[in-house]
């Protein structure tokens, strides 16, 4: 029912969403988040990006997040696919899609999963700007976003 994947290849947004809702007429809502590579960060032009991760732990961390979402809300399927390796502006980096009978659950769970992913899944971005390569710094706003879900 749930699926977590880390891959270098692009993913097909439509396929992910269709797979999630396929053949389950009890699903009334699918909420999805797609994170895309921007060509600007911290005021600088970004040409390309490389995503490093911690193989093994990444999948475990994502599975733990998905499991927690499943415990917190009444859901009918979660998909998380995250790319690693080289990326260019406009490329989708991650998709989180959540299905449920009613929309409230799917919205909350989808935002919860991406908020937790941002602070708990071991991915690191390195971007190439006109001034050279640099590691992206973690955002305080992501810590704040995660803190909202504490209980």
């Amino acid at each position, binding site marked *: 029912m749930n699926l977590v994947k880390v891959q270098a290849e692009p993913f097909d947004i439509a396929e992910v969403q269709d797979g999630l809702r396929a053949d389950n007429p009890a699903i009334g809502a699918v909420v999805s988040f797609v*994170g895309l590579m921007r060509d600007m960060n911290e005021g600088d032009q970004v040409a390309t990006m490389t*995503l*490093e*991760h*911690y193989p*093994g*732990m990444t999948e*475990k*961390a994502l599975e733990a997040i998905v499991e927690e979402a499943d415990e917190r809300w009444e859901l009918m399927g979660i998909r998380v696919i*995250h790319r690693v390796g080289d990326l260019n502006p406009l490329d989708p*980096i*991650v998709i989180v899609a959540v299905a449920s009978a009613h929309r409230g659950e799917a919205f909350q769970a989808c935002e919860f999963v*991406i908020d937790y*992913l*941002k*602070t*708990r*899944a*071991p*991915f*690191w*971005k*390195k971007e190439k700007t006109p001034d050279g390569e640099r*590691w*992206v*710094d*973690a*955002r305080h706003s992501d810590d704040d976003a995660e803190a909202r879900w504490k209980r």
Partner: protein
Amino acid sequence: MIKVLYFARLREQLETASEEMESAGMESVDSVIASLKERGGIWGDVFGGDQPVLMAVNQEMVDGSTKINDGDEVAFFPPVTGG
């Protein structure tokens, strides 16, 4: 023996992706950090407390007080920036 991994900015600063360490005397993650800091130079800088370092034992995020056993995989890395 324990396996120690370094990722992202830390890997580059330390010029090390992974190493094996004797587990003798390594009670907790904090003991590992103390022994790495003693190496001095860039190791002292990275593990000196000035830059944020996250840690995992056997691929689960933990804090420094976590106990270590022979055969464990310990990892150090900067705050994550995926998504």
